[in-house]
C-alpha cells in the first residue's frame, strides 16, 4: 500500500439517453511519489474523467481510489474538498485565476480555505511565487500578466498548499509553443525537486516530456510504461483508420 495514487478497477458510467457510456471501463493504475506521469488520449478516451477522479472532483461508479492510503472514492462533496485542499494542486488549461484578486491573493486561496493564518499565508504564498519567479508581480491583477506568467501564477497557487500531487490538465493548451515549452520545463524542474506530477494531455509531443506515459482509449489503458519507449507514441486508432 505504499502507492501515492492507486486506482483499482475503476468504472465511470454515465447514462446517455437509453444507453450507458463507459467513460472509464475498468481502469487500474498506481502512481508513486516522485513520478512524472502523462495521461494521454484523444478526446473521448476518458482522460478527462480520469483527471476528475484522480483530482477528487468526481467519484467512480464502481472500483476504489486510494490517495495517500486513504479511500477517497466514497467521500462526499465537503470531504473531497478537504482532500483537494490538502493533497492536490491543480494547473488548468485556462489558468483559472480569479480576475478580481491580485496575484498574491490568488496564490493564497488554497491556504485561505485550509485555515492558515494571514502571516503564514503571506509567507508561503511569497515563497511559492519566488519559485515561479513572479514575486515582484504579487500586487498585479491576472489581466495585467501575459499568458505564460498567468500559468506560472497558477503553478505557484498549486504549489502553495504543498500538495502531494500536482495535477496539470492541458497546461500548455492555451500557450504558444515557446511559452508552453517553458511551462513544461518548469513542471520537469518541480518533478526533479521531488514533486509528483500528473499531466493530462492529448498531445504526444507534450506527453513525451514526462517520464511515464499512460495511454487511454475508450476508457481503457492501452499503454502504461516508459515515455521514451517507441510503443508509447504509437496510436493504434490511427493505423486502423489508415488501413480502413
Amino acid at each position, binding site marked *: 500500500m505504499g502507492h501515492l495514487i492507486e486506482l483499482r478497477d475503476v468504472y465511470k458510467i454515465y447514462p446517455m439517453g437509453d444507453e450507458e457510456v463507459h467513460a472509464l471501463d475498468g481502469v487500474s493504475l498506481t502512481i508513486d511519489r516522485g513520478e512524472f506521469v502523462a495521461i494521454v488520449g484523444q478526446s473521448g478516451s476518458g482522460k478527462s474523467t480520469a483527471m*476528475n477522479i484522480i483530482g477528487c*472532483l468526481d467519484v467512480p461508479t464502481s472500483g476504489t481510489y486510494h490517495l495517500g492510503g486513504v479511500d477517497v472514492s466514497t467521500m462526499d462533496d465537503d470531504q473531497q*474538498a478537504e482532500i*483537494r*485542499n490538502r493533497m492536490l494542486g491543480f494547473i488548468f488549461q485556462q489558468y*483559472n485565476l480569479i480576475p478580481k484578486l491580485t496575484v498574491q491573493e490568488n496564490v493564497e486561496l488554497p491556504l*485561505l*480555505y485550509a485555515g492558515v493564518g494571514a502571516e503564514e499565508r503571506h509567507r508561503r504564498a511569497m515563497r511559492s511565487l519566488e519559485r515561479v519567479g513572479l514575486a515582484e508581480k504579487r500586487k498585479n491583477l491576472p489581466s495585467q500578466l501575459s499568458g505564460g506568467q498567468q500559468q506560472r501564477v497558477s503553478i505557484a497557487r498549486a504549489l502553495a498548499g504543498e500538495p502531494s500531487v500536482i495535477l496539470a490538465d492541458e497546461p500548455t493548451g492555451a500557450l504558444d509553443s515557446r511559452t508552453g515549452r517553458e511551462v513544461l520545463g518548469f513542471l520537469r524542474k518541480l518533478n526533479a525537486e521531488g514533486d509528483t506530477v500528473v499531466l493530462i494531455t492529448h498531445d504526444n509531443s507534450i506527453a513525451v516530456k514526462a517520464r511515464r506515459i499512460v495511454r487511454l482509449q475508450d476508457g481503457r489503458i492501452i499503454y502504461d510504461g516508459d515515455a521514451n519507449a517507441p510503443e508509447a507514441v504509437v496510436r493504434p486508432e490511427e493505423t486502423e483508420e489508415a488501413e480502413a
Partner: protein
Amino acid sequence: MNFTQSFKLAIKSLRTSKMRSFLTMLGIIIGVASVIIILSLGNGLTGMVEQQVEKLGVNQIYVYTWGRGDGTTLSVEPEDLYALTDQYPAIFSGVTPWVSGGSGVRQGSMEFEKTAVYGVSEAMYRPETGTTLDGDTLAKGRYLRYVDVVQRQNVCVIGAYLEREAFRGDALGKTLTIGGVPYTVVGVLAQNSEVMEEGRGDDRAYIPYENAMALSGSRAVTLYQMTAVSRDTVKAAKILLSDYLYQFYQDEEAYYIETMLESVEMINAMMGVAMLVLVAIAAISLLVGGIGIMNIMLVSVTERTREIGIRKSLGAKRRDIRRQFVIEAGTTSAIGGLAGILLGYLTATGIGSILGGILLAQLGTSGITFNATPSLNAILISFGVSVGIGVLFGYLPANKAAKLNPIDALRYE
C-alpha cells in the same frame, strides 16, 4: 475562510460593479428611509403632544356633574370637593369650580366679542407654586381671593392680550364691563402664547364663579377643574373621585371624570397604531428591496459560476461558498440600510422643520418644539432588519452556488 475575509471579498465584489450595487441597494435604501421618516415624524408628533400636555398639565382632571336628571336638585357643592381635596393632600393638589360666563366684554366704547369669560374660585391659584391650575403665572397684581369669591365681588383677572388691546398695557385698577356690570381688574396673567391673538389663550377674563353662574343663568356648578399632585397620582385621584361621586349620586350616569393623562394615553395609542400601519406599508418596499437583492445575487452566482468552480477545486467547502454569498448579500443590504438611515434622518429633519414650523404656528403656543428625530432603537432595528433581509434573501442564491458541481462549474464559459 473567516468572516473578515468574506467581508473584504464582499466589499471588493460590490466595488467592481458600483452601479449595479447601488441599484440593488436602492430598494433597501428607500425602504429603510421611509421607515425612518415615518418613525421620526411620529416621534416629533408624539413629543409635541407630550409637551403640549405637559404644559397644560398632565395632572389635570375635569369632573362633570350633571346630576341624576330626575328633577331633583341634588348636586355636589364646591365645598364637598374642597373637603375631599383637603382629605388627600398627597393625591390632590387643587380644585376649582369652572363656570363658563360666555364671551364678550367691553371697555369703554370698545367691544371684545371673542373674549372668553370664566368663573373660578380662589383655589384656581396656588400661592405655593405661584401658578394657576392651568399653569399660568401672574404678571401683575393679584389673583381672586376668598373674600372676592364669597362676597361675589365684581373683580376680575385678565389675560395679557386683553390688557394690551383694551388698556394699552396698563389695566390694574381699571374697569372692564362684563355682562353690563363693571368689574375692576385686580390682576393680569403673563403672556401664554407665542403670538397673542383674539379669542386665544391670552384673551380671557376670570371672575368669581358665582358671578359667572349668574351671567350664564345656571343653577349649579357642572364642571370642576382639579389637579393631582403629579402624573403618578392621577389614577388614584380618579378612583377616589369615582368612589366619592358614586356614593353621592348612586348613579354612574350623573357624573363624568376626564383625566388629561388618559386623553394623552389615548392619543398616543392612536398615533402608535397609525404609525404601525404606515411602517408596515413602508416595510413592503423593504421586502421588494430584498427580492431585488435575491434577483441580483442569482445573476451574480450564474456570472461567477467559474469562480465558484475554481474556489471549490482549491478546497472551498459548501459552507465557504454559501458564507461568501450570504455575506455579500448581507453587506449589500447593510450598506443600503446605513444609507437609508442617513437619507431618512436628513429627510425627516428637513420635513420636520417645515411641518413643525407650520404646526407650531397654528397652535401658537410657546415653549413647544417639534423634534423629528428617530430614536436610537428605531435606527438599530432598521439596520438589523435590513441586514436580516439581505441574509434571508441572499441565502437561496448562496445555497445554489454552494451546491454547484465543481466539474460543471469549471467548464462553464
